């Protein structure tokens, strides 16, 4: 009777140890799962930051393009003091080299605007520009922070 009880106790303890080993294995699996989930969350956070950064860059680019578009629109449709609208087509025909030269300069300015949006540092000349003749006319608000329009 005593032997049977002792044998039963041993079996019970062995079963408990088995259960404990199984539980330990399950805990390890759960911890692995948690670590995987943490890695996924960290990756999602990094992706979100990257998306936010790209969105901000796109918004900057969009703002710059809107300004450039507004400036170009004014350039092509400006009214003079007599109320006459500028005829860029006629000017391009009568003074093609002059207009081409101006448009080339605008193209260079536009490229510089994109460089600034992408993080290029402003030069001393850009920082010190306070006169209209010295500014980047495509994106003065980006390239020439010390320029105050008339």
């Amino acid at each position, binding site marked *: 009777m005593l032997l049977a009880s002792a044998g039963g106790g041993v079996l019970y303890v062995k079963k408990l140890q088995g259960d404990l080993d199984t539980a330990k294995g399950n805990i390890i699996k759960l911890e692995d799962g948690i670590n995987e989930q943490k890695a996924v969350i960290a990756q999602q956070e990094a992706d979100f930051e990257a998306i936010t950064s790209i969105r901000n860059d796109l918004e900057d680019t969009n703002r710059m393009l809107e300004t450039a578009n507004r400036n170009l629109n004014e*350039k092509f449709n*400006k009214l*003079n*003091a*007599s109320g006459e609208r*500028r005829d*860029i087509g006629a*000017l391009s025909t*009568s*003074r*093609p*080299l*002059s*207009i081409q*030269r*101006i448009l080339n*300069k605008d193209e260079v300015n536009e490229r510089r605007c994109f460089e600034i949006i992408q993080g290029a540092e402003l030069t001393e000349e850009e920082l010190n520009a306070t*006169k*209209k*003749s010295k500014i980047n*006319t495509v994106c003065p608000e980006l390239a020439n922070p010390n320029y105050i329009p*008339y």
Partner: protein
Amino acid sequence: MWKEKVMEVLEGHFGTKKEITETSHFLDDLDGDEIDIVDVTVQICEKLDISIPEEETFDIGTVQELLDVVEKNVV
């Protein structure tokens, strides 16, 4: 005489709110742009019936510089 005509063109183009003098800068003082300089040059050529080579106008910044170029081409 030609100089008065040039000033008439400039006043018609930029107005009389801002004083236009020989030292006036087209961009910095008259709030113009580079196309304004091309535009007034064309108007001056028509008014004075002269021809000004484009290359001579590339570096014009002030009214005096415009007057110098016009003077050179007035017959």
